[in-house]
């Protein structure tokens, strides 16, 4: 019964990945043949160029920051939904998921309408006389942050919700019974028990943000280029497929390392976090 699945994965996941791997070691590719020619490590060596290294580091920082803000915003929301009466939870979750189902591009443009110089926020602020000049809300790193958090938040909320929903309410009662106030109860019981959900949610946001192309492309300035944009740039503008492939694999490598770290911490076992 698994054969179709395996075939599907081989053809559409493994094969392109192998092709990318081959490209990343290719000395050159010719327009007449799909097969890479020659063998070299120069593309990987080029990754160490400070120009590209900076893009990687900036991407990691941006993704890390987006993960942090998502957690800050998403945790209370996931907690609130998980502690709502059962009949309300479905509706609340739907509210989280609906934007997720909306076309990504449309959502990003909608956000730009809010933030741009003649956008909704600036118009209101100007009209009320709070500011005289429109604020620069778009085309900078802060705008990219807003875009990343806005689009990726559900990725954190959903796994965290499913974890918090399973949290035994009696453990909360037990902590209170033993003299723990609301904060102590959260810090000593709720938080440690929700760590697997936190880890998985953060991993989802981090990996997605790290490879994000559309948000920095549309909302970022010239300086806020991220790894995703670099890859796009190499494949489509510079036409340097081998280097693009090397960047893409490096990106996949970082994602893999993050996933492995999360798994090591127990986040993907579905069980509790090991100490």
């Amino acid at each position, binding site marked *: 019964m698994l054969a179709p699945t395996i075939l599907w994965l081989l053809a559409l996941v493994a094969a392109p990945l192998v092709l990318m791997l081959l490209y990343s070691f290719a000395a050159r590719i010719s327009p007449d043949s799909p097969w890479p020619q020659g063998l070299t490590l120069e593309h990987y060596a080029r990754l160490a160029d400070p120009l590209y290294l900076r893009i990687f580091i900036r991407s990691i920082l941006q993704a890390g920051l987006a993960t942090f803000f998502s957690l800050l915003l998403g945790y209370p929301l996931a907690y609130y939904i998980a502690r709502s009466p059962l009949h309300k939870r479905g509706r609340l979750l739907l509210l989280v998921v609906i934007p997720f189902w909306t076309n990504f591009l449309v959502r990003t443009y909608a956000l730009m309408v809010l933030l741009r110089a003649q956008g909704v926020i600036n118009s209101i602020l100007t009209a009320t006389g709070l500011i005289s000049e429109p604020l620069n809300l778009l085309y900078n790193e802060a705008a990219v942050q807003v875009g990343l958090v806005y689009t990726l938040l559900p990725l954190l909320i959903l796994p965290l919700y499913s974890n918090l929903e399973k949290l*035994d309410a*009696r*453990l909360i*009662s*037990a*902590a*209170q*019974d*033993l*003299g*723990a*106030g609301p904060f*102590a*109860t959260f810090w*000593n*019981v709720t938080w*440690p*028990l929700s760590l697997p959900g936190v880890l998985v949610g953060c991993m989802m946001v981090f990996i997605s943000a790290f490879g994000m192309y559309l948000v920095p492309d549309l909302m970022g300035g010239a300086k806020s280029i991220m790894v995703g944009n670099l890859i796009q740039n190499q494949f489509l503008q510079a036409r340097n497929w081998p280097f693009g492939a090397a960047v893409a694999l490096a990106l996949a490598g970082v994602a893999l390392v993050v996933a492995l770290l999360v798994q090591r911490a127990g986040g993907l076992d579905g069980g*509790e*976090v090991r*100490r």
Partner: protein
Amino acid sequence: MVEFRGVSKTFDSTEALNDLTLNIRPGEFLTLLGPSGCGKTTTLRLLAGFEEPTAGEIWLAGRPVQGLPAYKRPVNTVFQHYALFPHMTVFDNVAFGLRMQKVAPAEIRRRVDAALELVRLGDLGKRRPQELSGGQQQRVALARALVMEPKVLLLDEPLGALDLQLRRAMQVELRQLQRRLGATFLYVTHDQEEALAMSDRIAVMRGGRVEQVGTPEEVYLRPATKFVAQFLGEANLLEGEGAATGRLRWGDYHLAVDRHLQPGRTTVALRPEQVRVRWPGSAVPVGPAENRLHGIVAERLFVGTGTRLVVEVAGRRLAALLPAGPGPDLGDQVELCFSAEHCVVVAP
């Protein structure tokens, strides 16, 4: 130690507790006994601080506790399914409350070790709760609550998840522990045997009200209501009329009961084990002023400690418990003898 003064609790529109008045004495093992939904757990949760009463007052050690959140009340709970923290060791579970009180680490170590010793888990401190058996987890929950030296220890069906043998052993252990510590225990159960075996006093509850409070002997031997008579063990309920003689007119019989009756409908409870059965050839004696009924054996059931008979007397059925040994057969004519003092008049 604890006083419930006219306490009521309503959830949405359902009444969970209705005008409860109950005193718990210091050092007492008091059991709230009743079927599910009778308000016993609500009573416990009100005292623990997980719920607030809709009306009435709760006093603990001379002070009203309404409005005080659970974490500020000097009571601790042993939860039904233990509610041990799965991410902490046994030691950390037991130490949790003391750490919340900012007790010095050396003192915590001493008291936690003592508590674990008390429940005979001295060497399991480093384990996780999941690695322990149900009985051991139960003891951890007990140690975690006892280490706090609560004014009252609240136990919410703590033995409900254990198998019968272990439950019996834990009943004895809990009771011994309570006596040794001189602690006040408020115990909730729906298991009447457990309540009878362990308690100093039992409060039998039904539908949010207390039906009767008394020692196990009192509630068993002198049930105040029909419900108490039937919930604790088995009881024959004889419904009849008070006769001019002060006896109970029950069918064609006039039965002597535990008091002089007034005219009107009256119900009397009679335990099957208080009924002696005479059959042709048996050597069972008859007391001087005993009630004697005649009937036919309709059912017999061997129950180990004896034989349970159902005897049809003038179209009504009465249960009687026969000690182990010889007995009548199905369809035999028998005589049922019982004294007036065992016919307890009960409220409807």
